[in-house]
């Protein structure tokens, strides 16, 4: 292998800082494997992986052991394995089949599924690895398989081909050395991005020429960040090396596709599993839902119950056996081996045997059912036609099904503003040059009306001096951007196409603001044509083409919040044009009509428009040289390049002359206001986190009804903290916020809706900006006081229904989410956003929702759920979230309930069988109870249940409060279910016991044995738990009928069959005719009916009484009405018209088990 790793210092890295010299974690790639002319470098060959992509986890040989190992690493599987092994090793009451079979089933199903997925991956890998690619070898193009690409190979890629590995662009068929690439399959962004060839090699556009390049590339070892790359290319021309910087604009990523470019030459630098795409394969950290946490808590309780039961029985057994008459009656002699065994070992074995006997209380099937429920249930989200967006052609996407129910538990919604609340469909509204306002007019369907005067002046006509700055302003906007022109036709057609306004070519940019600005300029008469040979071409008002040489682009970043270009006009003057947020421009402005522009900017911001300021600086040749040096030095740095670039930018973008400002409108998304209002009514606190200006953001908040007319908006901004210390400001606010709640307003006590409308209902909103926020969060000199600030701040926020955080950096968004998550109530948070800057908060929040927006797909890709529009959040939370929460909580509670019913009689039976671990039920019943007799109805319930109609849930968001705070899985409700289970078990067991009490209950005088007793209890059990579900089902479709009655029929048929045959392969025939004999007895029927009734009666009574005396909002709505049409019931209207008390979580004083939700209004 000729690819090597440099260990020595690079001779061309003159101006490096000392730290970089130790930095050996880079790689040197020889283009085309050609060694450079004697470079005096000692190098150690490094092995790079080949270009094979291995996404599969298993091979044919290691599948079984590896998969089994993976599966048994899960704690629950491991538990069942242990139980199974105990059954195998010691003599236990139930056969190993009873736990082995379900475990085997679960493991096999999972293994098959994983195996199938892996097989698919193998297939995909193979097709990728074997796909043909073209390599340049010795001046010839050679075809080879993709997997054989090595680092350093020079590849030829043709249009519409996908890059087989990470490549550095050497040259392209286009003269300017650029190529267009779409990264749709990487991050979903379908816009074409421009990549640049290395300047010194872009002229080499044939195989032979490319073959003659002698160069090495030094770059960092592969990193997963798709958007970061630093490297350096050393080109040996006449043995004189030239070093050029390489950045992410030179790096073509595997998975991206070449577009609009005939062919390119590029050199492979990262291959196979080291490509950035492969490094991004790893999955995100798993989020766990609140329901899952409750489930685990219950599991621990049940584990304790299990151990407790086993322990009690073991102790009682030895107490019972202490009586020598009972220890070893003559009819039940111990074997010699048993007699010799030490008592401690015997006791321990007994303990294990009890554990095995009662282990069904923690059923394997619950995990399977929960998984299936989540997996299958998430399809309803994807299938939802209401969440389908026609424009995008997308419906909702579920990336993790683990969080479905968490959607019903959200308390805080953190939303991005741009692209989430708003359309991110920018429209140029006006610009202001030195205080003169220009509004483009005569717009028709987005097209400029031909022949019309392209400008409308609002202000008095400017003088000649103004005209000059006006032109400079327009040129600045035409030049200072990174917009590309997408051409549908030939190169010659562009100009024509743009000129006549035909849609054959249009602007593309990663930022919609820029497109709006450039389009706005077009309407004002300055048309940006294209970037050709580093020259930007502008068609000015006189239809003349002006050419500016683009010298540098100081790209936009969200910290600096501005971007600049340095251009050289045809006259030779060099300008720096800078545009950015007002806060980042004004401090750098030295002259210009600052006051006028500032006024206008503020005016526009209040209108809800997005404003940008434009400034320029004329550079003398010396200044330019200096600038160039600064930039180049920073760019050449391998280490810490970003920081150094930021410093360089900071030095360059100073002493600006203010030109003017622009205003762009970002319209609200449709139904955004309605959605926000619904979320409020549902008791969620909505926070807007935006990087935008305070005024703009506040305007959007008012428009989207985040702040209503009655809302008292509190400000905690830099402006305020300048007047007052942060400390005082915080305390002032907290006093304001807390005062009203000292009044005994007790929501639960005052049922008069009129009072709800009065002034008592003051509702607070808070505006805070990034700077103040970091001051609040920053640990101050005294650690204690900082903690206080945080607490006070949280206290204020808790009492505000809406909070607006503006001027936020992306990381601050995540910080806020984290802060709220960690506050003492541990509320469930949801973050929704559409852009790359929202990813951190989406990953941080309990539930992350991505909008498939215009700013790319990163947010959607990193989210748990992706939806096309903000408005879909309403259905997602209010309907799907609500349903899934109801469904899964019933699923969890019911599963524990039915297993208490199942196992508790076994426990009771021990008291009658001398604590000998005799199982009550037959093996088949033990095994199949959870697998088939009672599994399907609850699974179906958990997929289909709709306790309230979809439309009512949408219409009345307040219903969401009924399930807030994980209320269906609180301890009182869990205890209720458990007690109900114990009660049912007692009824079943003792009912059957008294029936059997030493009497005959056949008409022929014959007696029944213990298996009949067990079967009687089991029959009552199966019917009781199924009927309990029947009572809980509020949504009976034909499928429910089919499954519920079907599973009961299945039980009966199975029992008849199981007892109907002398099973040839079995050693015991204890169930033979037991079920039929039981059914032939009248009293058995009568007692089955009675016991089922008695078992269900308390639950029915509890339901009816709770509904009559303390109905929840949900239950009231459930009451069937004569016309369930659009007529809104009175109480719904009340919720809508009155103010919604967001702030108080009422704790009603009624029977806790009745509480379906916390919000039980009086």
């Amino acid at each position: 292998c000729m690819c090597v790793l440099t260990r020595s210092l690079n001779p061309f890295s003159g101006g490096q800082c000392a730290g970089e010299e130790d930095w050996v974690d880079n790689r040197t790639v020889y283009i085309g494997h050609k060694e450079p002319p004697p470079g005096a470098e000692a190098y150690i060959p490094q092995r790079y992986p080949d270009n094979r992509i291995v996404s599969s986890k298993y091979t044919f040989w290691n599948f079984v052991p590896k998969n089994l190992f993976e599966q048994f690493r899960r704690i629950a599987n491991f538990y069942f394995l242990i139980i199974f092994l105990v059954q195998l090793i010691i003599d236990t009451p139930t056969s190993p089949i009873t736990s082995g079979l379900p475990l085997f089933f679960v493991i096999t199903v999972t293994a098959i599924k994983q195996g199938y997925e892996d097989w698919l991956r193998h297939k995909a890998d193979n097709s990728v690895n074997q796909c043909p690619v073209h390599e340049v070898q010795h001046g010839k193009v050679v075809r080879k398989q993709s997997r054989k690409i090595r680092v350093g190979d020079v590849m030829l890629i043709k249009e519409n081909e996908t890059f087989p590995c990470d490549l550095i662009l050497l040259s392209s068929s286009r003269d300017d050395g650029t190529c267009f690439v779409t990264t749709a399959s990487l991050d979903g962004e379908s816009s074409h991005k421009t990549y640049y060839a290395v300047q010194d090699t872009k002229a080499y556009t044939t195989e032979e020429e490319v073959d003659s390049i002698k160069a090495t590339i030094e770059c960092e070892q592969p990193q997963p960040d798709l958007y970061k790359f630093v490297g350096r290319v050393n080109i040996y021309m006449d043995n004189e090396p030239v070093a050029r910087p390489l950045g992410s604009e030179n790096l073509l990523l595997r998975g991206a596709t070449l577009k609009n470019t005939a062919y390119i030459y590029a050199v492979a630098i990262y291959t196979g599993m080291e490509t950035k795409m492969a490094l991004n394969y790893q999955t995100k950290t798993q989020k766990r839902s609140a329901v899952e946490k409750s489930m685990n808590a219950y599991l621990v309780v049940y584990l304790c119950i299990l151990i407790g039961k086993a322990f009690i029985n073991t102790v009682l057994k030895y107490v019972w056996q202490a009586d020598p008459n009972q220890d070893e009656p003559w009819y039940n002699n111990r074997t010699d081996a048993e007699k010799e065994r030490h008592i401690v070992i015997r006791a321990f074995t007994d303990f294990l045997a009890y554990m095995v006997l009662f282990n069904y209380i923690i059923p394997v099937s619950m995990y399977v059912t929960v998984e299936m429920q989540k997996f299958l249930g998430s399809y309803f989200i994807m299938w939802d036609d209401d969440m389908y967006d026609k424009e995008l052609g997308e419906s909702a996407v579920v990336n993790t099904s683990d969080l479905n129910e968490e959607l019903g538990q959200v308390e805080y919604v953190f939303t991005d503003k741009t692209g989430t609340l708003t359309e991110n469909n920018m429209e140029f509204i006006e610009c202001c040059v030195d205080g003169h306002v220009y509004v483009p007019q005569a717009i028709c369907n987005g097209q400029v009306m031909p022949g019309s005067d392209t400008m409308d002046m609002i202000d008095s006509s400017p003088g000649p001096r103004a005209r000059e700055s006006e032109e400079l302003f327009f040129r600045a906007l035409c030049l200072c951007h990174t917009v590309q022109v997408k051409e549908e036709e030939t190169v010659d057609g562009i100009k024509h196409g743009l000129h006549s306004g035909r849609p054959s070519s249009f602007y593309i940019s990663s930022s919609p603001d820029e497109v709006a600005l450039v389009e706005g300029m077009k309407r004002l008469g300055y048309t940006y044509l294209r970037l050709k040979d580093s020259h930007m071409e502008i068609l000015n008002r006189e239809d003349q083409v002006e050419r500016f040489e683009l010298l540098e682009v100081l790209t936009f970043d969200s910290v600096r919040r501005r971007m600049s270009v340095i251009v050289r006009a045809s006259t030779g003057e060099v300008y720096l044009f800078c545009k950015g947020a007002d806060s980042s421009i004004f401090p750098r402005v030295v002259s210009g009509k600052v006051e006028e522009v500032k006024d206008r900017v503020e005016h526009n911001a209040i209108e809800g428009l997005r404003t940008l300021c434009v400034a320029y600086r004329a550079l003398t040749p010396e200044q330019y040289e200096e600038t160039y040096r600064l930039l180049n030095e920073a760019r050449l740095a391998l280490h810490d390049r970003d920081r150094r670039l930021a410093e360089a930018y900071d030095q360059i973008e100073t002493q600006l002359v203010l030109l003017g400002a622009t205003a762009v409108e970002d319209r609200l998304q449709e139904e955004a206001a309605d959605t926000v209002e619904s979320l409020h009514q549902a008791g969620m606190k909505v926070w807007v986190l935006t990087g935008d200006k305070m005024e703009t953001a506040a305007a959007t908040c008012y428009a989207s009804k985040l702040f209503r007319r009655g809302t008292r908006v509190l400000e905690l901004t830099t402006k305020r903290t300048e007047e007052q210390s942060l400390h005082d400001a915080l305390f002032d606010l907290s006093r304001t916020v807390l005062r009203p709640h000292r009044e005994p307003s007790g929501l639960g006590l005052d049922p008069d809706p009129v009072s709800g409308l009065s002034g008592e209902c003051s509702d607070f909103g808070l505006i805070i900006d990034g700077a103040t926020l970091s001051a609040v969060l920053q640990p101050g000199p005294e650690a204690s006081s900082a903690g206080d600030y945080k607490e006070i701040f949280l206290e204020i926020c808790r009492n505000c229904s809406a909070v607006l955080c503006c001027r936020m950096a992306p990381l601050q968004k995540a910080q806020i989410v984290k802060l709220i998550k960690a506050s003492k109530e541990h509320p469930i948070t949801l973050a929704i956003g559409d852009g790359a800057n929202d990813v951190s908060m989406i990953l941080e929040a309990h539930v992350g929702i991505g909008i498939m927006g215009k700013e790319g797909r990163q947010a959607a890709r990193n989210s748990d759920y992706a939806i096309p529009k903000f408005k879909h959040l309403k259905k997602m939370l209010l309907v799907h979230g609500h349903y899934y929460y109801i469904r899964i909580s019933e699923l969890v509670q019911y599963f524990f309930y039915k297993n208490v019913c199942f196992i508790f009689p076994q426990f009771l039976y021990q008291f009658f069988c001398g604590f000998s671990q005799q199982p009550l039920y037959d093996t088949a019943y033990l095994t199949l109870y959870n697998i088939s007799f009672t599994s399907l109805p609850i699974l179906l319930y958990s997929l289909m249940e709709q306790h309230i109609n979809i439309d009512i849930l949408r219409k009345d968001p307040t219903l969401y409060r009924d399930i807030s705070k994980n209320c269906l899985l609180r301890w009182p409700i869990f205890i209720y279910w458990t007690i109900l289970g114990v009660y049912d078990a007692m009824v079943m067991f003792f009912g059957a016991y008294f029936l059997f009490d030493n009497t005959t209950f056949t008409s022929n005088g014959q007696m029944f044995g213990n298996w009949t007793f067990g079967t009687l209890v089991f029959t009552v059990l199966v019917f009781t738990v199924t009927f309990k579900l029947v009572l809980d089902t509020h949504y009976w479709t034909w499928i429910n009928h089919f499954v519920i009655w079907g599973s009961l029929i299945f039980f009966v048929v199975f029992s008849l069959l199981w007892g109907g045959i002398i099973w040839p392969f079995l050693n015991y025939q204890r169930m033979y005719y037991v079920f039929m004999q039981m059914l032939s007895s009248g009293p058995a029927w009568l007692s089955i009916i009675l016991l089922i009734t008695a078992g269900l009666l308390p639950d029915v009574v509890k339901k009816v009484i709770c509904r009559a005396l303390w109905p929840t909002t949900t239950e009231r709505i459930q009451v069937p009405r004569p016309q369930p049409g659009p007529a809104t019931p009175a109480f719904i209207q009340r919720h809508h018209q009155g103010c919604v008390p967001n702030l108080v979580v009422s704790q009603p004083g009624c029977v806790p088990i009745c509480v379906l939700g916390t919000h039980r209004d009086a």
Partner: protein
Amino acid sequence: MQGLLGKPLGRVHWSNKAAKTGPLAHRPDNSAFMQQRLPAWSPMLTTSTVLPFMYCMAVLCLVVGVSLLITVQGTQEMKLDYTEAGTCNNCFQSLKNVSNAGKSCSCRVVFTLEHEFKGDVFFYYGLQNFHQNLRKYMDSRDDAQMVGRKQNLKNPSSYCEPYIRDEKDVPIAPCGAVANSMFNDSFALQYQGQPGDPINTVPLYRKGIAWYTDENVKFRNPPKNKSQTLAQVFEGTTSPPYWQKPVYLLDPLDATNNGFINEDLIVWMREAAFPNFKKLYGVLVRTQEPFTNGLPAGNYSIDIVYNFPVQYFKGRKQVVLSTVTWFGGQNRFLPIAYLVTSGLVFIIAIFLTVIWWKFGKDAKNMNE
């Protein structure tokens, strides 16, 4: 258990996405099922829906309870503990000595029936504090042997521990602790109307006491040739250690009632659910006077061959005479349970009616 079934929804989806680009490519089907809008019936448990049911149920339970009570009152039952009664006390005392365990002992118990037992009379023996439901004991049997599988006859299952083979390694048939501990007292009932009247032996039919299916399908003797006797079939096996007779001689009177299909054995092999139980011994034959209507009132005596030791586990032995209706023997639990349920439901129904009257008549009342 994360991701047991539902893992990579998203990834698969995304990669598909790039492939399809039609504007409606991802539009979900608009079927009622997918949109969760299947027509459905939504019943609610409200006072007004539940109350009629409650009243109906109370009445129904009452009717059932009363009729069951009447039926149960029509049955008669007599229990006689003979463990230490009459001359059996001698046997009881003698069996206390372990060395007498195998010896037969006869005794007699007398009793009087105050009322006539009308109809079919069933004769049971009962045991108390005998745990037929101990796990090791219950498992100690080999059904494969008793359903007549030839290969299992001489290879009893390891379940039969500790009664698989005797000391000489001869397989035991029937093996296991259950069979070994088979109840071996026998009874002969005599009737003497008044003192001085002639003594009539009460005829007991000793068949039909086991389940029909057990007797005719499940329990089978090992297959034999026509020429073989039952004794020959069982050759090479030995009887359980506590037995006095081999399995093929259990019923000396009826040759067809021997081996694994002996009804006493079958009855014993159906293990009782609780430590106090009774098992059917025989049924009164009502063909001859004075027993055509059942057992007449008067004095009776039972001659007992007293073999079964119970003192070691503080057990008691009983004889039970009982008549049976369609409902079975004298079981008062079910009628009482029905009556109690009826009462409870009725009280609850009244309570709910009050609630309904005061609050629930119209749900809107609650809002005002």
